[in-house]
């Protein structure tokens, strides 16, 4: 099994996640699609780490996971506080910052 198959799978997952972020309007589902994109990148990091015989790629994946966890915590807190104020809002309704 060569490296290309993993990279192609990673590219497909990343693109599906990107389409999801662009198409969906529910902020929670958009966050899930971002997680999908991060996982695709993790997969390609591990694939490169293996094919280069270097463990640094796996270390970067650990950091990506930590940052993803922090991002999800803060993002969901923002979603929660917005939804508490205006229930049923989708991403198109959130124009409070528009000048």
């Amino acid at each position, binding site marked *: 099994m060569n490296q290309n198959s993993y990279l192609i799978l990673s590219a497909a997952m990343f693109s599906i*996640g990107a389409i999801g972020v662009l*198409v969906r309007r529910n902020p929670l589902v958009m966050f*899930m699609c971002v997680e999908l994109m991060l996982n695709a990148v993790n997969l390609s990091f591990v694939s490169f780490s293996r094919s280069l015989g270097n463990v640094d790629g796996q270390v970067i994946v*650990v950091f990506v996971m930590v*940052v*993803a966890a922090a991002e999800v915590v803060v993002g969901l807190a923002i*979603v929660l506080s917005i939804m508490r104020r205006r229930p049923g809002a989708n991403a198109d309704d959130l124009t409070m910052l528009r000048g």
Partner: protein
Amino acid sequence: MLAATVNSETIVWIIASTICLLGSVGVVGSRNPVHSALSLVATLFGVAVLFVAQQAYFLAVVQVIVYAGAIVILFLFVIMLLGVDSQEDVWFVERRIWRRPLAVVAGAGLAVGILVTILVVTSQVTGTPSADPPSSDFDVANLGSVLFTKYVYAFEITSVLLTIAVVGAVVLTRKAKGAIDLDEFPPDPEADPADEADPADEADPETAAATVDEVAR
């Protein structure tokens, strides 16, 4: 010819990548956010299997524990807090009709660009990277030693990042003392806001407790 090239890793790759792709499509296409979250779990497990297939055992374990065990549960907590029945009509007609086709075209263009880059770059690389490097280089001890020597500063900074995230989540979700909910109490010029605030509404203990619990993970 096919039987000669098919080995166990190919079979694992086919199964796991099918699970990953179906799960990804499920995340994007499900009407119910809970179904999206469950599809996300399937995708994360598929990625964990692919990590195992590439000798990244520690990362596979962390993937299952952190992603499937903590992050998806956090998503489910928030979905439940906001109401499960909030289904979204995924394929409704947008106000701007060009927007959805444009999104799909952009995603497809992204995919084609990445694929072309992969094929071009990997066909130019000469030299054969070791297909299966000695597994002693990839065990958990080696990963830990690199993490705590070469990347020790980045590792310490991530602890600061996590602390900031915890504090930020608590600050964002708690209600300020004496704050009134404008939706429940329309502004009344004659009333004193401090007296109007309902003490039971201030803390919102369930929400705050759940959030803090999840953050603690």
